[in-house]
């Protein structure tokens, strides 16, 4: 590894516990020319709204943005799947010259007629504003003509970071919330915000709450239906899992509908358990909910503990590096990894905020690297320096880990294995175990008994 320096523009975003003292710089745009692992505003909006299964998602722009997000998430549906299709207005040169609003109108109109969605989201990409398309007015017109909400998602890629895309998605969702009939919603009801039903995770979590006697009114947006979102204001509490993306919607709902919210995480034994107990504590007028929660927790923990301990014995002292979307998840994962005996030597995120990073600093061991908006160079450097055995991250990070010759666990939105909840914790442990303990690592140059001399490195 060439030992290159951290870019001057990025020095405030890399921190080593025990050595550095400053506040981590975060929430800033990626430095130009740095190879960020982040995407753009559009990406933020698209991933959040993607799991709404009975909505049409039309990307207004040239073909790339729609093509790169076709069937991109591991979010499962129990019914419709129109969300898994990729629709684009495929803007071409003449559209750029003369404007694309007419094309957008025709495209959306014919696609709505063809697929009969319950709502349509129209995503603006980079050039839409520049060529002067009035997407709002197309949406208003279509809403009237088609009798379904046609909502503009203001997600022009360059207008901020991925976080601004989350915000645009929340604004789009806020237009739906409050428009449905809530007369049938029972009092002990919650919404789960920022749970995307990757590999069926929302179903797992829903079941825990059901067994506690808590009704899950709407999951936003995992396996969501437009109708659920419209009725979301009927719940007593918002439970926010992916806080980076959904806190803004929770705040809007708190202000507008007086629905309080709590922040939870469904990853790892500790945080999963808190997520159930915190909800039970909210419904303190029904003490039986807490009792049932205890039963759920006990049953679930008992069911997996034996196998988890087996992994812990094998994995004790192994080192993990984390690079995830939001820092709050890193927090859960550090705890989850400790349960299976592993130490975290690097914890980074694409979009963490100041409080997240302060919390991360507190919980981390001495010497842990904490990093905001890392690039491949920094990730690989610290992974190598800190001798990590596995990297936990997303698809873009996988080849970095594999090329260095260490294990990898996909904890991003494409995953096909449920990692949330108690059974998710077990899956996580299994996945980490089967990557870290694989015999193939003895052949990689890092560990090669022949010092890599057998093959040109």
């Amino acid at each position, binding site marked *: *590894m*060439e030992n290159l320096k951290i*870019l001057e*523009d990025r020095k405030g975003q890399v921190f080593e516990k025990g050595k550095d003292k400053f506040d981590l710089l975060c929430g800033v745009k*990626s*430095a*130009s*020319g*740095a*190879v*960020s*692992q982040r*995407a753009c505003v*559009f*990406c933020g909006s698209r991933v959040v709204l993607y799991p709404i299964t009975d909505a049409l998602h*039309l990307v207004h*722009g*040239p*073909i*790339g943005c729609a*093509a*790169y997000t*076709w*069937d991109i998430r591991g979010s499962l549906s129990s019914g419709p799947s129109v969300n898994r299709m*990729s*629709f684009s*207005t*495929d*803007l*071409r*040169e003449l559209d*750029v010259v003369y404007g694309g609003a007419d*094309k957008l109108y025709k495209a959306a109109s*014919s*696609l709505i007629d063809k697929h009969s969605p319950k709502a349509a989201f129209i995503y603006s990409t*980079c*050039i839409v504003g*520049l*060529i002067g398309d009035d997407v709002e007015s197309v949406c208003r017109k279509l809403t009237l003509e088609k009798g379904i909400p046609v909502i503009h998602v203001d997600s022009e*890629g*360059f*207008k901020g*970071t991925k976080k601004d895309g989350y915000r645009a998605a929340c604004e789009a969702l806020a237009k739906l919330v409050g428009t449905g009939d809530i007369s049938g919603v029972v009092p002990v009801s919650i919404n789960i915000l920022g749970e995307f039903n990757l590999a069926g995770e929302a179903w797992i979590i829903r079941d825990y709450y059901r067994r506690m006697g808590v009704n899950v009114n709407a999951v936003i947006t995992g396996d969501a239906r437009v109708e659920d979102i419209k009725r979301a204001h009927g719940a007593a509490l918002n439970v926010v899992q992916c806080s980076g993306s959904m806190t803004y919607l929770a705040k809007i709902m708190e202000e507008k509908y007086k629905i309080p919210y709590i922040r939870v995480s469904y990853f790892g034994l500790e945080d999963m358990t808190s997520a159930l107990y915190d909800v039970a504590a909210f419904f303190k007028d029904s003490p039986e909910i807490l009792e049932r929660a205890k039963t759920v927790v006990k049953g679930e923990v008992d069911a997996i503990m034996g196998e988890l301990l087996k992994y812990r014995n094998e994995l004790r002292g192994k080192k993990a590096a984390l690079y995830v979307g939001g820092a709050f998840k890193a927090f859960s994962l550090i705890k989850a990894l400790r349960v299976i005996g592993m130490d975290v030597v690097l914890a980074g995120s694409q979009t963490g905020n100041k409080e997240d990073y302060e919390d991360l600093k507190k919980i981390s061991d001495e010497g842990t690297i904490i990093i905001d908006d890392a*690039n*491949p*160079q920094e990730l690989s450097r610290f992974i*190598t320096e800190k001798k990590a055995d596995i990297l936990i991250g997303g*698809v*873009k990070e996988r*080849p970095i880990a594999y*090329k*260095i*010759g260490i294990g990898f666990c996909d904890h991003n939105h494409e995953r096909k294995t449920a990692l949330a909840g108690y059974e998710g914790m077990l899956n996580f442990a299994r996945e980490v175990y089967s990557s870290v303990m694989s015999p193939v690592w003895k*052949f*990689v*140059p*890092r560990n090669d008994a022949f010092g890599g001399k057998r*093959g*040109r*490195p």
Partner: protein
Amino acid sequence: MKTREAPVSVTNACKLCSPLGAVLAFKGIEGAVCILHGSQGCATYIRRYMISHYKEPLDVASSSFSEDAAVFGGAASLMQGLDNLIKQYRPAVIGIATTCLSETIGDDVGRILQDYVKNRGAAKLPALINVSTPAYKGTHADGFLAAAKSAVEALAEKSEKENTLNLFPGMVSPEDIRHLKELLADFGIEYTLFPDYSETMDAGQWGGYKLIPPGGTPVKSLKNTANAALTIEFGISAQNGDSPGKFLEEKFGVKNVNMPLPIGVKATDNFIEKLEEISGATVPDKYLFERGRLIDSYVDAHKYVFGVKAAVFGDEDMVAAMAVFLDEIGMVPSICASGAPAGKLEKYLRSAITDFDGKGITVLEDADFEIIEGAVEKTSPAVMIGSSKGYKISRKLDIPLIRCAFPVHDRIGGARIALAGYTGTQKIFDSIVNSLLEARQDASPVGFSYM
């Protein structure tokens, strides 16, 4: 031929945007890194898309446009990006590709780079190659070709004429590139193959991270392309309009020959004959044996493939060559579809396949997967041949899918797809035949364990 109006929308695109192609072409230059002049998302999406196929790290920088840049121009962003990129990567070459955003606001990248070079001093800088790749114009295949041409245009330098060959194979796999290089070496031909991403996009284990993967066409060789005796370009995408081969022919008088991708006996024979002609050598025995085995397998399997319909979809260079190969073995390429703009594919197939009209071949140009699905439903081919993006149709209609083209996102081995030459053809032929046999076996009410 009926001309279809450009559709108002695309459902499940069978194409990607042009900057993606440019990134791949730049990965084929030794010591190069690439920066996309636009939003952060373009670089990240393209990386993710390509990483998932090649299973290799791929660093692509972005000039990371802000709102200010969109209003006042992206010059400052781009210059800062270049500074940072040089500091971190110390590249020999930087490929700069535009995006829809920088093109729409009218950034003149050529001009920005002139200012940059003037300001920073040319001596300290890597070679800068810029290409215009607005996503609203053409597809990733056009971006690939445009970037390849820009590189040659920027670097080729006239000096003494040499008896060398330029081979521009187009968007083929790293495995195919390796095979072509071996073939040229076995003929004893001095050559420049460009873009050569056979190592950069399909490397062994590194032991540590390499910011710039080893491999790629050396800049020195690219300079020498101006002095070659001949250029061979593969693929119909290079036929009309701009291509690196045509540029060298016009500017430096290097004769340019366009050939289809060598898939199949006939297409490979034509290519090999050309190599014999250039080198004055006869084909090494090794290739005659490969050819012999391939034809032997054609005979072994002829009954299983005769008259069997296939749907071929993807980049038009691959579709064109694959369709002609299928015709060669007696299969019917009943659907030939590409997301590329209309105009080339059908024209080529009509010229290359005898009795085209009698064979029941439907060519779909500027097509998306919804249009392809409609055609597949109508003609019920026995097999689908193309990228992994055909999976949705394959699953729905229960038709086996042979994954042999970019992208393959649901299997490993995308970089090792082999189509070119006798050995590449052998592999794809075996895959097709075996998938037909498997389907037949699965469909049998009793099953059978001997053929």
